């Protein structure tokens, strides 16, 4: 059962609304409080994409759990700015924005970023932006105080939040989730619930996200090791990633929305094998290696060998990705990710592309180039990658590179664009890679018209 249906139809809490059942509107937003690495953490999530099992040992907060006798500062800001019209999306906005107020994570962006997964069809968002700005002003006064305590003191959430750590801690001791042996593995569920909604509500699941160890990101020398349940938000918050990928915030902002990033796992992005999976493209360029485990047996596999054909991957049923490892870019090295979709944010790519360059003294030693939306699988482009090795960047190299990329792809026309568009767009994104990676030479990469 989806958590959304449980909330609305079992618990009769009707403030959580149904808009799309695929995580694209945010009307069903809730907060999830969970114990992660010894700390209680709150994040927003879309309850339509959560199995009831995802709620195990967690504090699930709906709009009803935020309401107090008086309007909260978030609600008051919306009221003052006239930021609600038909009202159907409104509780979702209030919940997401309140999630920002109870989040400790300083890398979560601004108040407006917190509501980037919420769609409003009435207001045109300007009044909502103004309301979020009001909330931001309050949040900017938070110094050392813990997020929940600050939020309680400012009336953003009711007092009972202060007792949650104790109650959740007690839950961690007492309950284990029983799953049957044939249970499928469910990471974030953000893709599976969209693709196979009806089967999802019936199936039996196990939830790797409940294992703390699978959510760690650590460094072994120049190798980064990520657990199989690491989410996009975990990467966004990781000091390791932030240090080695200076453009990280820009890339992350192009990937789905804040609540989906809270839920979606990197391993899930791989196993769903969508040809435009943003993190498949990202890690293909980086030549990530996977550790697959099944009943104690383990094997390793390069991600570049993982994708066999459309939605066909080198993984047995029951095998689970327990680790993802890759070499971190050094200070000399370069990495860049590009994505264009019909709507810049909260959308699926028409084409996305990543490039990873190992550099020395201005020369490219080794390259990884990948692109999505141009083949039945997330595509690593071996010829084009090899072509860059031991070369200095130049306009000529770029044009040769574009020619090579075109020979390596086979896009199809679909709702995300025509063949001609996808071909032109990928050429442009390769151009954008060069302009971004070698800003000093950027003017020489501009196409002649």
């Amino acid at each position: 059962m989806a958590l959304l249906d449980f909330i609305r139809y079992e618990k009769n809490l009707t403030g959580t609304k149904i808009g799309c059942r695929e995580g694209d509107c945010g009307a069903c937003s809730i907060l999830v409080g969970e114990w992660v690495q010894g700390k209680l953490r709150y994040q927003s999530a879309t309850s339509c994409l959560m199995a009831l099992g995802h709620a195990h040992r967690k504090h699930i907060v709906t709009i009803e759990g935020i309401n107090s006798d008086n309007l909260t500062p978030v609600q008051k800001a919306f009221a003052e700015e006239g930021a609600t019209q038909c009202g159907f999306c409104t509780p979702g906005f209030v919940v997401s924005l309140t999630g920002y107020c109870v989040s400790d994570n300083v890398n979560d962006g601004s108040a407006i970023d917190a509501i980037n997964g919420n769609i409003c069809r009435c207001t045109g968002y300007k009044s909502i932006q103004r309301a979020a700005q009001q909330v931001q002003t309050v949040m900017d006064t938070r110094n050392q105080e813990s997020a929940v305590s600050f939020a309680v003191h400012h009336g953003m959430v009711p007092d009972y939040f202060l007792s949650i750590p104790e109650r959740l801690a007690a839950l961690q001791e007492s309950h284990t989730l029983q799953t049957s042996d044939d249970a499928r593995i469910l990471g974030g569920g953000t893709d599976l619930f969209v693709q196979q909604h009806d089967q999802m509500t019936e199936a039996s699941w196990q939830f790797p996200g409940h294992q703390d160890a699978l959510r760690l990101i650590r460094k072994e020398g120049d190798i980064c090791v990520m657990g199989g349940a690491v989410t996009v938000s975990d990467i966004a918050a990781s000091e390791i990633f932030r240090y080695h990928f200076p453009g990280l915030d820009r890339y992350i902002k192009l990937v789905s929305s804040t609540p989906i990033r809270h839920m979606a796992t990197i391993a899930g992005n791989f196993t769903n094998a969508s040809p435009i999976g943003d993190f498949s493209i990202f890690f293909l360029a980086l030549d990530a290696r996977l550790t697959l485990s099944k009943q104690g047996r383990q094997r390793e596999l390069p991600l570049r060998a993982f994708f066999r054909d459309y939605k066909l991957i080198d993984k047995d049923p029951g095998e689970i990705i327990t680790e993802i490892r890759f070499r971190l870019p050094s200070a000399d090295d370069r990495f860049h990710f590009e994505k264009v979709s019909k709507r810049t944010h909260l959308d699926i790519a028409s084409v996305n592309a990543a490039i990873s360059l190992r550099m020395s003294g201005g020369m490219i030693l080794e390259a990884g180039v990948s692109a999505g939306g141009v083949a039945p699988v997330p595509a690593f482009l071996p010829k084009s990658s090899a072509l860059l090795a031991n070369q200095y960047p130049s306009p000529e190299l770029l044009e040769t590179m574009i020619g090579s990329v075109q020979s390596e792809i086979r896009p199809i026309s679909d709702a995300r664009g025509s063949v001609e568009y996808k071909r032109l767009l990928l050429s442009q994104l390769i151009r954008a890679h060069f302009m971004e990676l070698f800003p000093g030479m950027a003017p020489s990469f501009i196409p002649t018209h």
Partner: protein
Amino acid sequence: MQHIDTKSHLRGESLYLDDIPMVRGTLFGVVYPSPVAHGRIRSLQLDDALAMPGVVRILTYKDIPGRNQIGGIVPDEPLMAEHEVHFHGMPIAFVVAETDEQARAAIKKIQVDIEPLPVITDPRQAKALGNLIVPPRTFKIGDSTGAFKNCAYIASGRADSNGQEHLYIETQGAYALPLEGGQVRVYSSTQGPTAVQRHAADVLGISMSQVEVDVKRLGGGFGGKEDQATAWAVFCALAAYLLQKPVKYSLHRMEDMRMTGKRHPYSSDFTIGLDKDLNILAYEVCFYQNAGASADLSPAVMERTLFHCTNSYYIPNVTATAYSCRTNLPPNTAFRGFGGPQGMFVIESAIAQIAEQIGVHPSRIQEKNLIRTGHEFPYGQIAQSQAPACWDKACRHFDAKRMMEEVAQFNRNNVLCKKGISFMPICFGISFTKTLMNQARALVHIYTDGSVNISTGAVEMGQGVSTKLIQVAASVFSLPAEQIRINSTNTYRIANTSPSAASATADLNGKAVELACNALKGRLTDMASRILQKDISSIHFRGGQVYVHDAATELNWKGLVQAAYVNRISLSEHAHYATPDIHFDSSIEKGHPFAYHVYGTAITTVTVDTIRGTYQIDAVKIVHDTASSMNRMIDKGQIEGGLVQGIGWMTMEEIVFDQEGRLRSNALSTYKVPDIYSVPGIIDVEFHETDEDNLAIFRSKAVGEPPLMYGIGTYFALRMALKAFNPSGEIGFDAPMTPEKMLMGLYQKKSS
């Protein structure tokens, strides 16, 4: 004053259709839709589905006791297909089961054998085959053929605008309860309760007096629930009536998107002619409206396209013809603007094309030809124009000259990004173009404790009409708003209502409330004069107190109300309002169809990333004709929201049907509406307040639809930016300007 539902909205306590507490024994229905767009039904196999757990009954057209017909304007739309299907998603059967999941599982077991027939999705092709919904219509003024001979410049071309999904966040749905005596109560998420009542009665074969339709509020409508909410409500009513059990159907998003019609796509041909001073002398235009499989509201939408084919401009010689073309798509329907935006897109395209040909910025032609008071529209109405005033104010207030220079300078200095600027004047007529629909009623009760209760035919869907109606009553009675409640919209309280549409809901229902309140106030004033022994003309109400001239008396509202009750004076009033002065003769296509027009001007600036083909809207600066806004917060919300919806239509919202008539953009993952990052960096709204006398409630002009058309400016600003990068590109007029069309246009080579 804030929207009256603000607090309950923010707390998640406002009730929508799916939140209504369910009665024990409620069953759940789901429509089985046609899997093909056009064909003859050879056989329908229901046995396997009937054998599924929980299935109670499967209804087909054979189970209909009354008429299998829900067409509003033309009786060409069966509730369920009989022998032919005309669009992918057309209802064939209605499965009723004990749970929602069981009903959905059962429809997968239904098998239908359909002999395929040719699928037509293109309106021009439909027209060529003679597949028209209604005969074509032509609006004409002057002699366009003759006038072209005097033109120094003539341009012809084609303009296409795609459809638009309403994407109300609350999907369609209904919940019907059987009542005693063969009556049915239907909760419906509809903008047109009377349409639901009329068609339910017709399908069930009972009288309208047996059908109670109740609407508390909608989670967005935008026209999509004007006619197209009817089917689901009638399905539930039919099942409830036949089974004598409550039946509910709340559509899933994909069902909703697949089965319901959208904004009409249009394909149009134009020719425009100017004299050497840039006066538009002549305009000829032919519209091909893609109506879908049945009429729905298409003839009325087509009519409004003709009314607005010259937008804000005075053109002395016009010939405008429109065809409503029958295709194998879901019946297209009302959507904010109702054909007006489609008409305006074409005249703006014509101006852009001829401006390009002459080598001037289109704004020079636009400004030169703005309609002025005393000018005649092609349909005979004489303009009371605010068009030049709004334009001039926008140019002055926002320093348009400097904006133009900044864009030009930016484009001289930049290659990786190009900017574009456009001007979009609007002119939108207020009234239902079908004159008889411009009537409304209000029922106002004052209870003996002094509280007030209002019922009207207006449906609250976020546009703030309930708030405005309360403001009317509060103002007439001089009471605090908290003392006044507004009821759900119910066909047993208010009969024969017009739908909440045409931007006219607050005007029509507000005037009716005003009339009812004035009548009550008259009786109470009379009562007060008797109690206080003062002349009637000296009695005033202020803040719940009775005044004689400027002096407060001992008598307050509550005391007065009680006195009236004791004296057996009616504390209830039912009032009727019909818009005066409007008329239209469709046999000559002339008349005075609109109570008034709403004007405005938007200036839009955009920046295009010439490497990636992506873009952002920097600013939209608007002067909007409100006359005398009765609620600035609500009106501003309508302007901002309408603008952004229009921008969505012109940019990222792309409806994709394949050759087989299947909707490919059938979910929020494939159909994109604006998100919080994609809206303009700045939306600056300046109210154009005037003391102009008009027929609006409290002289506060209607605001629902007109602002949507400011969004058209974004298309033309983007096109200007594109041309700044690729001046020789042959870029037609084909909205929306998706990033795909932008990138292809940026790098398009001249074909010759």
